[in-house]
Protein backbone atom coordinates (compact mmCIF):
# COMPACT_ATOMS: atom_id res chain seq x y z
CA UNK A 1 0.00 0.00 0.00
CA UNK A 2 1.61 3.20 -1.08
CA UNK A 3 -0.78 6.07 -1.25
CA UNK A 4 0.97 9.42 -1.70
CA UNK A 5 -0.43 12.49 -0.03
CA UNK A 6 0.96 15.93 -0.69
CA UNK A 7 -0.50 18.35 1.82
CA UNK A 8 -0.19 22.14 1.51
CA UNK A 9 3.27 21.88 0.00
CA UNK A 10 4.88 25.15 -1.03
CA UNK A 11 8.44 25.76 -2.19
CA UNK A 12 10.30 29.02 -2.49
CA UNK A 13 13.77 29.48 -3.95
CA UNK A 14 14.81 32.73 -2.36
CA UNK A 15 12.18 35.25 -3.34
CA UNK A 16 10.86 33.10 -6.20
CA UNK A 17 7.94 30.84 -5.34
CA UNK A 18 8.18 27.71 -7.47
CA UNK A 19 5.23 25.89 -5.87
CA UNK A 20 2.13 27.39 -4.24
CA UNK A 21 0.14 25.34 -1.78
CA UNK A 22 0.00 22.00 -3.59
CA UNK A 23 -2.58 19.47 -2.40
CA UNK A 24 -2.68 16.15 -4.17
CA UNK A 25 -3.53 12.60 -3.22
CA UNK A 26 -2.34 9.78 -5.44
CA UNK A 27 -4.08 6.50 -4.71
CA UNK A 28 -2.24 3.23 -4.19
CA UNK A 29 -1.20 1.76 -7.56
CA UNK A 30 -2.41 4.82 -9.40
CA UNK A 31 -0.52 6.14 -12.42
CA UNK A 32 -0.46 9.92 -11.99
CA UNK A 33 0.93 12.13 -14.72
CA UNK A 34 2.14 15.66 -13.98
CA UNK A 35 1.63 17.70 -17.10
CA UNK A 36 2.62 21.29 -17.63
CA UNK A 37 4.74 23.73 -19.58
CA UNK A 38 8.48 24.05 -18.99
CA UNK A 39 9.32 25.73 -15.69
CA UNK A 40 5.94 25.19 -14.04
CA UNK A 41 7.43 23.22 -11.14
CA UNK A 42 7.00 19.55 -12.13
CA UNK A 43 10.55 18.52 -11.32
CA UNK A 44 10.49 20.52 -8.10
CA UNK A 45 7.37 18.71 -6.90
CA UNK A 46 8.84 15.34 -7.80
CA UNK A 47 12.05 16.14 -5.96
CA UNK A 48 10.09 17.11 -2.87
CA UNK A 49 8.31 13.75 -2.90
CA UNK A 50 11.67 12.02 -3.42
CA UNK A 51 13.29 13.91 -0.57
CA UNK A 52 15.90 15.65 -2.69
CA UNK A 53 14.38 19.04 -1.98
CA UNK A 54 12.80 20.22 1.26
CA UNK A 55 9.42 21.87 0.99
CA UNK A 56 9.26 25.34 2.50
CA UNK A 57 5.95 24.37 4.12
CA UNK A 58 3.67 21.36 3.98
CA UNK A 59 3.79 17.62 4.46
CA UNK A 60 4.42 14.55 2.33
CA UNK A 61 2.93 11.18 3.28
CA UNK A 62 3.70 7.89 1.60
CA UNK A 63 1.84 4.73 2.57
CA UNK A 64 0.32 6.36 5.63
CA UNK A 65 3.71 7.46 6.93
CA UNK A 66 4.86 11.04 7.13
CA UNK A 67 8.12 11.11 5.18
CA UNK A 68 9.13 14.73 4.74
CA UNK A 69 11.83 14.44 7.41
CA UNK A 70 13.20 11.15 6.02
CA UNK A 71 16.18 10.84 3.66
CA UNK A 72 15.38 9.56 0.12
CA UNK A 73 16.54 6.03 0.86
CA UNK A 74 13.96 5.54 3.60
CA UNK A 75 10.94 6.63 1.56
CA UNK A 76 10.46 3.48 -0.49
CA UNK A 77 10.83 5.36 -3.75
CA UNK A 78 12.91 5.05 -6.91
CA UNK A 79 13.45 7.91 -9.28
CA UNK A 80 14.30 8.41 -12.94
CA UNK A 81 16.12 11.71 -13.34
CA UNK A 82 15.41 14.17 -16.11
CA UNK A 83 19.09 14.10 -17.07
CA UNK A 84 19.46 10.34 -16.44
CA UNK A 85 22.26 10.48 -13.83
CA UNK A 86 23.78 7.19 -15.00
CA UNK A 87 26.97 6.52 -13.03
CA UNK A 88 29.89 7.00 -15.43
CA UNK A 89 32.31 4.75 -13.54
CA UNK A 90 30.03 1.71 -13.61
CA UNK A 91 28.88 -0.54 -16.43
CA UNK A 92 25.23 -0.72 -17.42
CA UNK A 93 24.91 -3.94 -15.42
CA UNK A 94 26.45 -2.35 -12.33
CA UNK A 95 24.27 0.72 -12.77
CA UNK A 96 21.05 -1.27 -12.87
CA UNK A 97 22.26 -3.49 -10.04
CA UNK A 98 23.53 -0.60 -7.90
CA UNK A 99 20.46 -0.23 -5.69
CA UNK A 100 19.99 -3.98 -5.43
CA UNK A 101 23.55 -4.43 -4.20
CA UNK A 102 23.00 -1.60 -1.71
CA UNK A 103 20.07 -3.66 -0.43
CA UNK A 104 22.48 -6.59 -0.12
CA UNK A 105 20.33 -8.88 -2.28
CA UNK A 106 21.97 -12.19 -3.20
CA UNK A 107 24.04 -11.92 -6.38
CA UNK A 108 21.81 -14.40 -8.24
CA UNK A 109 18.77 -12.23 -7.54
CA UNK A 110 20.65 -9.11 -8.63
CA UNK A 111 21.57 -10.81 -11.88
CA UNK A 112 17.99 -12.00 -12.45
CA UNK A 113 16.47 -8.57 -11.88
CA UNK A 114 19.10 -6.70 -13.90
CA UNK A 115 18.60 -9.01 -16.86
CA UNK A 116 14.84 -8.87 -16.63
CA UNK A 117 14.61 -5.06 -16.55
CA UNK A 118 17.34 -4.69 -19.17
CA UNK A 119 15.41 -6.98 -21.50
CA UNK A 120 12.27 -4.97 -20.85
CA UNK A 121 14.05 -1.77 -21.86
CA UNK A 122 15.76 -3.47 -24.84
CA UNK A 123 19.26 -2.82 -23.53
CA UNK A 124 20.24 -6.40 -22.66
CA UNK A 125 23.03 -6.34 -25.24
CA UNK A 126 24.59 -3.24 -23.61
CA UNK A 127 25.11 -4.62 -20.10
CA UNK A 128 28.91 -4.55 -20.34
CA UNK A 129 29.20 -0.97 -21.57
CA UNK A 130 29.99 2.25 -19.71
CA UNK A 131 27.68 5.25 -19.96
CA UNK A 132 30.22 7.11 -22.07
CA UNK A 133 29.70 4.44 -24.72
CA UNK A 134 25.90 4.86 -24.86
CA UNK A 135 23.62 7.12 -26.86
CA UNK A 136 21.30 9.53 -25.05
CA UNK A 137 18.30 7.29 -25.56
CA UNK A 138 20.18 4.21 -24.35
CA UNK A 139 21.34 6.07 -21.27
CA UNK A 140 17.78 7.10 -20.55
CA UNK A 141 16.64 3.49 -20.73
CA UNK A 142 19.41 2.48 -18.32
CA UNK A 143 18.05 5.08 -15.91
CA UNK A 144 14.53 3.67 -16.22
CA UNK A 145 15.75 0.10 -15.84
CA UNK A 146 17.74 1.07 -12.74
CA UNK A 147 14.62 2.45 -11.09
CA UNK A 148 12.40 -0.46 -12.16
CA UNK A 149 14.89 -3.03 -10.88
CA UNK A 150 14.40 -1.67 -7.37
CA UNK A 151 10.77 -2.81 -7.48
CA UNK A 152 9.83 0.17 -5.31
CA UNK A 153 6.43 0.98 -3.82
CA UNK A 154 6.55 4.34 -5.56
CA UNK A 155 8.32 5.22 -8.79
CA UNK A 156 8.96 8.84 -9.72
CA UNK A 157 9.79 9.45 -13.37
CA UNK A 158 10.91 12.79 -14.75
CA UNK A 159 10.33 12.74 -18.51
CA UNK A 160 11.77 9.23 -18.77
CA UNK A 161 11.09 8.76 -22.48
CA UNK A 162 11.85 12.27 -23.73
CA UNK A 163 14.95 11.27 -25.66
CA UNK A 164 13.60 8.26 -27.56
CA UNK A 165 12.46 8.23 -31.17
CA UNK A 166 8.70 8.17 -31.77
CA UNK A 167 8.47 4.44 -32.43
CA UNK A 168 10.57 3.30 -29.49
CA UNK A 169 8.75 5.73 -27.29
CA UNK A 170 5.40 4.22 -28.17
CA UNK A 171 6.73 0.75 -27.43
CA UNK A 172 8.41 1.73 -24.12
CA UNK A 173 5.28 3.54 -23.03
CA UNK A 174 3.25 0.35 -23.38
CA UNK A 175 5.95 -1.71 -21.64
CA UNK A 176 6.17 0.74 -18.74
CA UNK A 177 2.46 0.84 -18.20
CA UNK A 178 2.29 -2.96 -18.28
CA UNK A 179 5.17 -3.52 -15.87
CA UNK A 180 3.99 -0.94 -13.36
CA UNK A 181 0.45 -2.28 -13.37
CA UNK A 182 1.75 -5.81 -12.88
CA UNK A 183 4.06 -4.83 -10.02
CA UNK A 184 1.31 -2.75 -8.37
CA UNK A 185 3.57 0.29 -8.22
CA UNK A 186 2.28 3.79 -7.54
CA UNK A 187 3.74 6.09 -10.18
CA UNK A 188 4.22 9.80 -10.67
CA UNK A 189 5.23 10.52 -14.21
CA UNK A 190 6.32 13.95 -15.40
CA UNK A 191 5.92 14.93 -19.02
CA UNK A 192 5.03 17.87 -21.18
CA UNK A 193 3.80 15.65 -23.97
CA UNK A 194 0.02 15.59 -23.69
CA UNK A 195 -0.43 12.59 -25.95
CA UNK A 196 1.87 10.62 -23.64
CA UNK A 197 -0.04 11.94 -20.64
CA UNK A 198 -3.41 10.95 -22.11
CA UNK A 199 -2.29 7.47 -23.07
CA UNK A 200 -0.51 6.57 -19.83
CA UNK A 201 -2.39 8.26 -17.04
CA UNK A 202 -5.03 7.01 -14.68
CA UNK A 203 -5.23 10.65 -13.71
CA UNK A 204 -3.52 13.78 -14.99
CA UNK A 205 -2.54 16.77 -12.87
CA UNK A 206 -2.21 19.85 -15.00
CA UNK A 207 0.26 22.29 -13.49
CA UNK A 208 0.59 25.96 -14.27
CA UNK A 209 2.96 28.44 -12.64
CA UNK A 210 3.49 26.38 -9.52
CA UNK A 211 -0.14 25.39 -9.01
CA UNK A 212 -2.15 22.30 -9.81
CA UNK A 213 -4.99 23.66 -11.90
CA UNK A 214 -6.86 20.41 -12.32
CA UNK A 215 -6.35 16.77 -11.38
CA UNK A 216 -8.71 14.35 -13.05
CA UNK A 217 -9.09 11.42 -15.45
CA UNK A 218 -7.68 12.14 -18.93
CA UNK A 219 -11.08 12.21 -20.61
CA UNK A 220 -12.52 14.48 -17.93
CA UNK A 221 -9.59 16.87 -18.33
CA UNK A 222 -10.17 16.89 -22.05
CA UNK A 223 -13.94 17.21 -21.93
CA UNK A 224 -14.42 19.33 -18.83
CA UNK A 225 -11.42 21.56 -18.32
CA UNK A 226 -11.72 23.24 -14.95
CA UNK A 227 -10.01 26.40 -16.07
CA UNK A 228 -9.29 28.36 -19.19
CA UNK A 229 -5.62 27.44 -18.96
CA UNK A 230 -6.37 23.70 -19.14
CA UNK A 231 -8.77 24.20 -22.04
CA UNK A 232 -6.11 26.11 -23.95
CA UNK A 233 -3.26 23.76 -22.99
CA UNK A 234 -4.83 20.36 -23.63
CA UNK A 235 -5.82 19.31 -27.10
CA UNK A 236 -4.14 19.98 -30.39
CA UNK A 237 -5.50 22.30 -31.69
CA UNK A 238 -6.78 23.64 -28.36
CA UNK A 239 -10.29 24.79 -27.44
CA UNK A 240 -11.85 27.84 -29.11
CA UNK A 241 -12.97 30.79 -26.99
CA UNK A 242 -15.55 33.42 -27.94
CA UNK A 243 -16.81 36.33 -25.83
CA UNK A 244 -20.41 35.93 -24.64
CA UNK A 245 -22.76 38.73 -23.55
CA UNK A 246 -25.57 38.02 -21.08
CA UNK A 247 -29.12 38.30 -22.44
CA UNK A 248 -30.70 37.19 -19.15
CA UNK A 249 -32.41 33.93 -18.24
CA UNK A 250 -29.41 31.81 -19.20
CA UNK A 251 -29.35 33.16 -22.75
CA UNK A 252 -26.06 34.39 -24.17
CA UNK A 253 -25.15 36.35 -27.26
CA UNK A 254 -22.16 34.69 -28.99
CA UNK A 255 -20.99 36.09 -32.34
CA UNK A 256 -24.43 37.47 -33.04
CA UNK A 257 -26.22 34.22 -32.16
CA UNK A 258 -28.23 33.51 -29.04
CA UNK A 259 -27.08 30.35 -27.29
CA UNK A 260 -28.44 28.68 -24.14
CA UNK A 261 -25.94 28.71 -21.28
CA UNK A 262 -25.65 28.91 -17.51
CA UNK A 263 -27.23 31.61 -15.40
CA UNK A 264 -24.44 33.90 -14.29
CA UNK A 265 -24.00 37.59 -13.65
CA UNK A 266 -21.44 39.40 -15.78
CA UNK A 267 -19.76 38.39 -19.03
CA UNK A 268 -18.56 34.86 -19.81
CA UNK A 269 -16.45 33.14 -22.42
CA UNK A 270 -18.03 30.52 -24.61
CA UNK A 271 -15.71 27.58 -25.40
CA UNK A 272 -15.90 24.63 -27.76
CA UNK A 273 -13.40 22.10 -29.12
CA UNK A 274 -12.59 22.34 -32.85
CA UNK A 275 -13.97 18.85 -33.49
CA UNK A 276 -17.24 19.62 -31.69
CA UNK A 277 -18.70 21.89 -34.38
CA UNK A 278 -20.55 20.76 -37.50
CA UNK A 279 -21.56 22.53 -40.65
CA UNK A 280 -25.21 23.43 -40.27
CA UNK A 281 -28.08 25.79 -41.10
CA UNK A 282 -27.98 27.86 -37.96
CA UNK A 283 -25.03 28.67 -35.67
CA UNK A 284 -21.84 30.71 -35.71
CA UNK A 285 -21.13 32.60 -38.92
CA UNK A 286 -17.50 31.98 -39.94
CA UNK A 287 -15.25 33.25 -42.70
CA UNK A 288 -12.51 30.83 -43.84
CA UNK A 289 -8.99 32.19 -43.37
CA UNK A 290 -6.80 29.09 -43.68
CA UNK A 291 -7.38 25.48 -44.74
CA UNK A 292 -4.94 22.78 -43.62
CA UNK A 293 -5.62 19.23 -44.83
CA UNK A 294 -4.53 16.73 -42.14
CA UNK A 295 -5.40 13.58 -44.07
CA UNK A 296 -8.39 12.30 -42.15
CA UNK A 297 -9.63 15.78 -41.40
CA UNK A 298 -9.52 19.34 -42.54
CA UNK A 299 -8.28 21.90 -40.04
CA UNK A 300 -10.05 25.11 -40.92
CA UNK A 301 -9.07 28.38 -39.30
CA UNK A 302 -11.91 30.91 -39.50
CA UNK A 303 -12.85 34.35 -38.37
CA UNK A 304 -15.90 34.28 -36.10
CA UNK A 305 -17.05 37.73 -35.00
CA UNK A 306 -13.48 39.03 -35.19
CA UNK A 307 -11.97 36.13 -33.18
CA UNK A 308 -9.82 33.31 -34.60
CA UNK A 309 -11.72 30.04 -34.45
CA UNK A 310 -10.51 26.57 -35.47
CA UNK A 311 -12.76 23.83 -36.69
CA UNK A 312 -11.96 20.24 -37.61
CA UNK A 313 -14.19 19.32 -40.54
CA UNK A 314 -14.59 16.44 -42.93
CA UNK A 315 -11.76 16.22 -45.47
CA UNK A 316 -14.20 15.70 -48.35
CA UNK A 317 -15.29 19.32 -48.15
CA UNK A 318 -13.88 21.66 -50.72
CA UNK A 319 -13.31 25.02 -49.09
CA UNK A 320 -11.44 28.06 -50.22
CA UNK A 321 -10.35 31.28 -48.57
CA UNK A 322 -13.14 33.77 -47.97
CA UNK A 323 -15.93 31.17 -48.00
CA UNK A 324 -18.58 31.79 -45.35
CA UNK A 325 -19.73 28.85 -43.25
CA UNK A 326 -22.26 28.30 -40.52
CA UNK A 327 -20.77 26.27 -37.69
CA UNK A 328 -23.18 24.54 -35.32
CA UNK A 329 -21.69 23.85 -31.88
CA UNK A 330 -22.67 20.46 -30.46
CA UNK A 331 -24.92 21.37 -27.50
CA UNK A 332 -23.50 18.98 -24.87
CA UNK A 333 -19.89 19.95 -25.65
CA UNK A 334 -20.25 23.67 -24.99
CA UNK A 335 -18.27 25.00 -22.03
CA UNK A 336 -18.34 28.37 -20.26
CA UNK A 337 -15.57 30.21 -18.41
CA UNK A 338 -15.70 33.23 -16.17
CA UNK A 339 -13.04 35.67 -17.44
CA UNK A 340 -12.68 37.18 -13.96
CA UNK A 341 -11.61 33.91 -12.28
CA UNK A 342 -10.68 32.00 -15.49
CA UNK A 343 -12.57 29.05 -13.95
CA UNK A 344 -15.26 26.96 -15.59
CA UNK A 345 -18.91 27.85 -14.93
CA UNK A 346 -21.43 25.02 -14.95
Amino acid at each position, binding site marked *: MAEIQIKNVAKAFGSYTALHDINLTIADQEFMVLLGASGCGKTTLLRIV*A*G*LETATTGEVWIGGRRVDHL*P*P*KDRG*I*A*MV*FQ*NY*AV*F*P*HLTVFENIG*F*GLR*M*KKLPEAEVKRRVERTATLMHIEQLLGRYSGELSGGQRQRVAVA*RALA*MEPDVILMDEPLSNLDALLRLEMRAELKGVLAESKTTAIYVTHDQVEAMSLADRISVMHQGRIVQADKPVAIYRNPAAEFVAGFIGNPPMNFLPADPRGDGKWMVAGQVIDGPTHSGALKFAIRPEDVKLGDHGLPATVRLVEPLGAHLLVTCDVGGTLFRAVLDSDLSLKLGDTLTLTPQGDRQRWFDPATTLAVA
Partner: protein
Amino acid sequence: MTPVTTAAPRAATKAPARRVYAASVLLLSVWVLGPIYLLFVNTLSSPEAVNSFPKSFIPQFDLGSLAFFAKFDGMLAALGNSVIVAAMTMVMSIAIGAPAGYALSRFEFRGKELFRLLILLTRAFPLPLLALPLAVLFIRTGLDDTTFGLALVHTTLAIPFAVLITFSLFSGIPIELEEAAWTLGCTRLTAFTKVVLPLILPGITASAIFAFVISWNEVFAAAVLTIENRTLTAFLLQKLGDAPIHLKFAGGFILVTPALIFIFAVRKYLFAMWGIANR
Protein backbone atom coordinates in the same frame (compact mmCIF):
# COMPACT_ATOMS: atom_id res chain seq x y z
CA MET B 1 48.00 17.47 -54.11
CA THR B 2 45.16 19.84 -54.92
CA PRO B 3 43.82 20.27 -51.35
CA VAL B 4 47.05 22.00 -50.40
CA THR B 5 46.45 24.83 -52.81
CA THR B 6 43.01 25.54 -51.38
CA ALA B 7 44.30 25.40 -47.83
CA ALA B 8 47.29 27.64 -48.51
CA PRO B 9 45.62 31.09 -48.25
CA ARG B 10 44.14 30.25 -44.88
CA ALA B 11 47.43 28.97 -43.58
CA ALA B 12 49.15 32.11 -44.82
CA THR B 13 46.90 34.46 -42.84
CA LYS B 14 47.47 32.41 -39.73
CA ALA B 15 51.22 32.06 -40.16
CA PRO B 16 52.38 35.19 -38.23
CA ALA B 17 50.24 34.37 -35.21
CA ARG B 18 51.50 30.80 -35.29
CA ARG B 19 55.08 31.95 -35.44
CA VAL B 20 54.66 34.22 -32.42
CA TYR B 21 53.02 31.36 -30.58
CA ALA B 22 55.78 28.91 -31.47
CA ALA B 23 58.45 31.42 -30.49
CA SER B 24 56.81 32.04 -27.11
CA VAL B 25 56.59 28.33 -26.43
CA LEU B 26 60.21 27.88 -27.38
CA LEU B 27 61.35 30.79 -25.22
CA LEU B 28 59.45 29.55 -22.18
CA SER B 29 60.74 26.03 -22.65
CA VAL B 30 64.34 27.21 -22.89
CA TRP B 31 63.79 29.44 -19.84
CA VAL B 32 62.69 26.47 -17.76
CA LEU B 33 64.55 23.57 -19.32
CA GLY B 34 67.90 25.33 -19.91
CA PRO B 35 68.94 25.58 -16.25
CA ILE B 36 67.62 22.12 -15.53
CA TYR B 37 69.68 20.70 -18.36
CA LEU B 38 72.81 22.49 -17.13
CA LEU B 39 72.15 21.11 -13.66
CA PHE B 40 71.84 17.67 -15.16
CA VAL B 41 75.06 17.96 -17.18
CA ASN B 42 77.12 19.33 -14.32
CA THR B 43 75.84 16.76 -11.87
CA LEU B 44 77.00 13.98 -14.14
CA SER B 45 80.43 15.54 -14.80
CA SER B 46 83.69 15.12 -12.94
CA PRO B 47 84.71 17.98 -10.63
CA GLU B 48 87.42 19.03 -13.12
CA ALA B 49 84.95 19.29 -15.98
CA VAL B 50 82.57 21.34 -13.84
CA ASN B 51 85.25 23.89 -13.02
CA SER B 52 86.88 23.98 -16.45
CA PHE B 53 86.11 26.31 -19.32
CA PRO B 54 84.62 26.16 -21.95
CA LYS B 55 81.72 24.10 -20.68
CA SER B 56 80.73 20.85 -22.22
CA PHE B 57 77.04 20.39 -23.01
CA ILE B 58 77.30 16.65 -23.09
CA PRO B 59 77.20 14.80 -19.76
CA GLN B 60 80.17 12.50 -19.02
CA PHE B 61 78.06 10.20 -16.84
CA ASP B 62 80.56 10.54 -14.02
CA LEU B 63 78.66 9.48 -10.92
CA GLY B 64 81.32 10.76 -8.51
CA SER B 65 79.33 13.74 -7.21
CA LEU B 66 76.20 11.71 -6.64
CA ALA B 67 78.17 8.93 -5.00
CA PHE B 68 79.58 11.48 -2.59
CA PHE B 69 76.07 12.26 -1.36
CA ALA B 70 75.24 8.62 -0.83
CA LYS B 71 78.01 8.53 1.78
CA PHE B 72 77.43 12.04 3.12
CA ASP B 73 76.80 12.00 6.86
CA GLY B 74 73.23 12.90 7.84
CA MET B 75 72.09 12.87 4.23
CA LEU B 76 69.95 9.78 4.53
CA ALA B 77 68.37 10.98 7.76
CA ALA B 78 67.50 14.29 6.11
CA LEU B 79 66.06 12.48 3.13
CA GLY B 80 63.99 10.37 5.52
CA ASN B 81 62.75 13.50 7.30
CA SER B 82 61.78 15.09 4.02
CA VAL B 83 59.74 12.07 3.03
CA ILE B 84 58.08 11.87 6.46
CA VAL B 85 57.18 15.56 6.57
CA ALA B 86 55.95 15.54 2.98
CA ALA B 87 53.84 12.43 3.59
CA MET B 88 52.28 13.95 6.70
CA THR B 89 51.61 17.17 4.79
CA MET B 90 50.01 15.20 2.02
CA VAL B 91 47.67 13.31 4.34
CA MET B 92 46.73 16.31 6.49
CA SER B 93 46.15 18.74 3.65
CA ILE B 94 43.83 16.29 1.87
CA ALA B 95 42.06 15.32 5.09
CA ILE B 96 41.34 18.99 5.79
CA GLY B 97 41.23 20.41 2.29
CA ALA B 98 38.97 17.88 0.55
CA PRO B 99 36.00 18.31 2.92
CA ALA B 100 36.34 22.07 2.54
CA GLY B 101 36.40 21.69 -1.24
CA TYR B 102 33.31 19.47 -1.05
CA ALA B 103 31.44 21.97 1.12
CA LEU B 104 32.36 24.82 -1.23
CA SER B 105 31.05 22.97 -4.25
CA ARG B 106 27.92 21.43 -2.74
CA PHE B 107 26.50 23.78 -0.12
CA GLU B 108 25.27 27.33 -0.23
CA PHE B 109 26.29 29.34 2.81
CA ARG B 110 26.82 32.96 3.63
CA GLY B 111 30.26 34.32 2.96
CA LYS B 112 31.12 31.53 0.54
CA GLU B 113 32.78 33.82 -2.00
CA LEU B 114 34.69 35.63 0.75
CA PHE B 115 35.82 32.28 2.10
CA ARG B 116 37.17 31.28 -1.31
CA LEU B 117 39.03 34.54 -1.56
CA LEU B 118 40.48 34.20 1.92
CA ILE B 119 41.79 30.77 1.05
CA LEU B 120 43.76 32.28 -1.78
CA LEU B 121 44.90 35.20 0.34
CA THR B 122 46.61 32.91 2.82
CA ARG B 123 49.15 32.37 0.06
CA ALA B 124 49.78 36.11 -0.07
CA PHE B 125 50.88 36.21 3.56
CA PRO B 126 54.69 36.20 3.74
CA LEU B 127 56.05 33.29 5.71
CA PRO B 128 59.12 35.18 7.02
CA LEU B 129 56.76 37.46 8.96
CA LEU B 130 55.30 34.44 10.67
CA ALA B 131 58.58 32.67 11.28
CA LEU B 132 59.57 34.26 14.56
CA PRO B 133 56.20 34.03 16.33
CA LEU B 134 55.84 30.50 15.02
CA ALA B 135 59.25 29.50 16.32
CA VAL B 136 58.39 30.92 19.74
CA LEU B 137 55.02 29.19 19.77
CA PHE B 138 56.57 25.90 18.69
CA ILE B 139 59.21 26.07 21.41
CA ARG B 140 56.51 26.73 24.01
CA THR B 141 54.39 23.82 22.87
CA GLY B 142 57.33 21.53 22.30
CA LEU B 143 56.68 21.27 18.57
CA ASP B 144 60.00 22.83 17.63
CA ASP B 145 62.46 20.63 15.79
CA THR B 146 59.87 17.91 15.18
CA THR B 147 58.78 16.56 11.83
CA PHE B 148 55.16 16.90 12.92
CA GLY B 149 55.53 20.59 13.72
CA LEU B 150 57.09 21.25 10.35
CA ALA B 151 54.39 19.19 8.64
CA LEU B 152 51.79 21.44 10.29
CA VAL B 153 53.37 24.50 8.74
CA HIS B 154 53.66 22.83 5.37
CA THR B 155 50.04 21.74 5.61
CA THR B 156 48.91 25.33 5.98
CA LEU B 157 50.90 26.12 2.87
CA ALA B 158 49.38 23.24 0.91
CA ILE B 159 45.75 23.52 2.06
CA PRO B 160 44.74 26.39 -0.25
CA PHE B 161 45.74 24.33 -3.25
CA ALA B 162 44.10 21.21 -1.86
CA VAL B 163 40.85 23.12 -1.32
CA LEU B 164 40.84 24.74 -4.74
CA ILE B 165 41.76 21.58 -6.63
CA THR B 166 39.20 19.42 -4.83
CA PHE B 167 36.57 22.17 -5.13
CA SER B 168 36.92 22.10 -8.87
CA LEU B 169 36.96 18.28 -8.92
CA PHE B 170 33.75 18.04 -6.90
CA SER B 171 32.11 20.74 -8.98
CA GLY B 172 32.83 18.65 -12.06
CA ILE B 173 30.65 15.84 -10.70
CA PRO B 174 26.93 16.49 -11.25
CA ILE B 175 25.00 16.54 -7.99
CA GLU B 176 22.37 14.34 -9.67
CA LEU B 177 24.79 11.42 -9.51
CA GLU B 178 24.85 11.68 -5.74
CA GLU B 179 21.12 12.22 -5.61
CA ALA B 180 20.54 9.14 -7.73
CA ALA B 181 22.67 7.18 -5.28
CA TRP B 182 20.60 8.52 -2.37
CA THR B 183 17.38 7.33 -3.99
CA LEU B 184 19.01 3.93 -4.57
CA GLY B 185 19.61 3.31 -0.90
CA CYS B 186 22.76 5.27 -0.11
CA THR B 187 23.35 7.60 2.80
CA ARG B 188 25.29 10.77 2.17
CA LEU B 189 28.41 8.90 3.23
CA THR B 190 27.92 5.75 1.14
CA ALA B 191 26.95 7.84 -1.89
CA PHE B 192 30.22 9.68 -1.40
CA THR B 193 32.34 6.54 -1.11
CA LYS B 194 30.59 4.60 -3.88
CA VAL B 195 30.01 7.33 -6.44
CA VAL B 196 31.96 10.50 -5.79
CA LEU B 197 35.19 9.01 -4.51
CA PRO B 198 35.82 6.65 -7.44
CA LEU B 199 35.22 9.54 -9.81
CA ILE B 200 37.58 11.98 -8.14
CA LEU B 201 40.24 9.57 -6.92
CA PRO B 202 42.71 10.40 -9.70
CA GLY B 203 42.27 14.09 -8.97
CA ILE B 204 42.64 13.60 -5.24
CA THR B 205 45.84 11.65 -5.84
CA ALA B 206 47.16 14.48 -7.95
CA SER B 207 46.25 17.02 -5.33
CA ALA B 208 47.99 14.90 -2.67
CA ILE B 209 51.12 14.66 -4.76
CA PHE B 210 51.07 18.39 -5.25
CA ALA B 211 50.94 18.88 -1.47
CA PHE B 212 53.87 16.46 -1.23
CA VAL B 213 55.88 18.56 -3.66
CA ILE B 214 55.08 21.80 -1.85
CA SER B 215 56.42 20.33 1.37
CA TRP B 216 59.40 18.74 -0.38
CA ASN B 217 60.46 22.05 -1.92
CA GLU B 218 59.86 24.24 1.12
CA VAL B 219 63.08 25.48 2.67
CA PHE B 220 62.41 28.57 4.75
CA ALA B 221 60.20 27.14 7.48
CA ALA B 222 62.25 23.97 7.46
CA ALA B 223 65.45 25.91 8.09
CA VAL B 224 63.95 28.07 10.83
CA LEU B 225 61.92 25.51 12.73
CA THR B 226 64.28 22.52 12.78
CA ILE B 227 67.82 22.01 13.96
CA GLU B 228 68.46 18.31 14.42
CA ASN B 229 65.57 16.95 12.36
CA ARG B 230 66.33 18.84 9.18
CA THR B 231 64.62 18.06 5.91
CA LEU B 232 66.72 17.60 2.82
CA THR B 233 66.27 21.16 1.58
CA ALA B 234 67.26 22.73 4.89
CA PHE B 235 70.06 20.21 5.32
CA LEU B 236 71.56 20.89 1.90
CA LEU B 237 71.15 24.63 2.29
CA GLN B 238 73.14 24.48 5.52
CA LYS B 239 75.82 21.96 4.50
CA LEU B 240 76.45 23.11 0.96
CA GLY B 241 76.89 26.77 1.81
CA ASP B 242 80.63 26.50 1.32
CA ALA B 243 80.91 23.18 -0.48
CA PRO B 244 82.69 22.88 -3.84
CA ILE B 245 80.57 23.80 -6.81
CA HIS B 246 80.22 20.30 -8.28
CA LEU B 247 78.62 19.14 -5.03
CA LYS B 248 76.21 22.08 -5.10
CA PHE B 249 75.14 21.00 -8.54
CA ALA B 250 74.61 17.45 -7.43
CA GLY B 251 72.65 18.59 -4.35
CA GLY B 252 70.43 20.73 -6.47
CA PHE B 253 69.87 17.86 -8.83
CA ILE B 254 68.81 15.56 -6.00
CA LEU B 255 66.28 18.15 -4.83
CA VAL B 256 64.83 19.03 -8.19
CA THR B 257 64.39 15.61 -9.73
CA PRO B 258 61.63 14.10 -7.54
CA ALA B 259 59.65 17.36 -7.61
CA LEU B 260 59.89 17.48 -11.39
CA ILE B 261 58.74 13.91 -11.80
CA PHE B 262 55.79 14.42 -9.46
CA ILE B 263 54.65 17.65 -11.06
CA PHE B 264 54.92 16.08 -14.47
CA ALA B 265 52.71 13.23 -13.32
CA VAL B 266 49.95 15.51 -12.06
CA ARG B 267 50.21 18.40 -14.54
CA LYS B 268 46.71 17.80 -15.91
CA TYR B 269 45.10 18.47 -12.55
CA LEU B 270 46.97 21.66 -11.84
CA PHE B 271 44.91 23.27 -14.58
CA ALA B 272 41.78 22.11 -12.79
CA MET B 273 42.75 24.30 -9.87
CA TRP B 274 42.05 27.39 -11.92
CA GLY B 275 38.73 26.08 -13.03
CA ILE B 276 39.84 25.18 -16.53
CA ALA B 277 37.94 22.07 -17.49
CA ASN B 278 40.27 19.16 -18.01
CA ARG B 279 37.85 16.68 -19.52
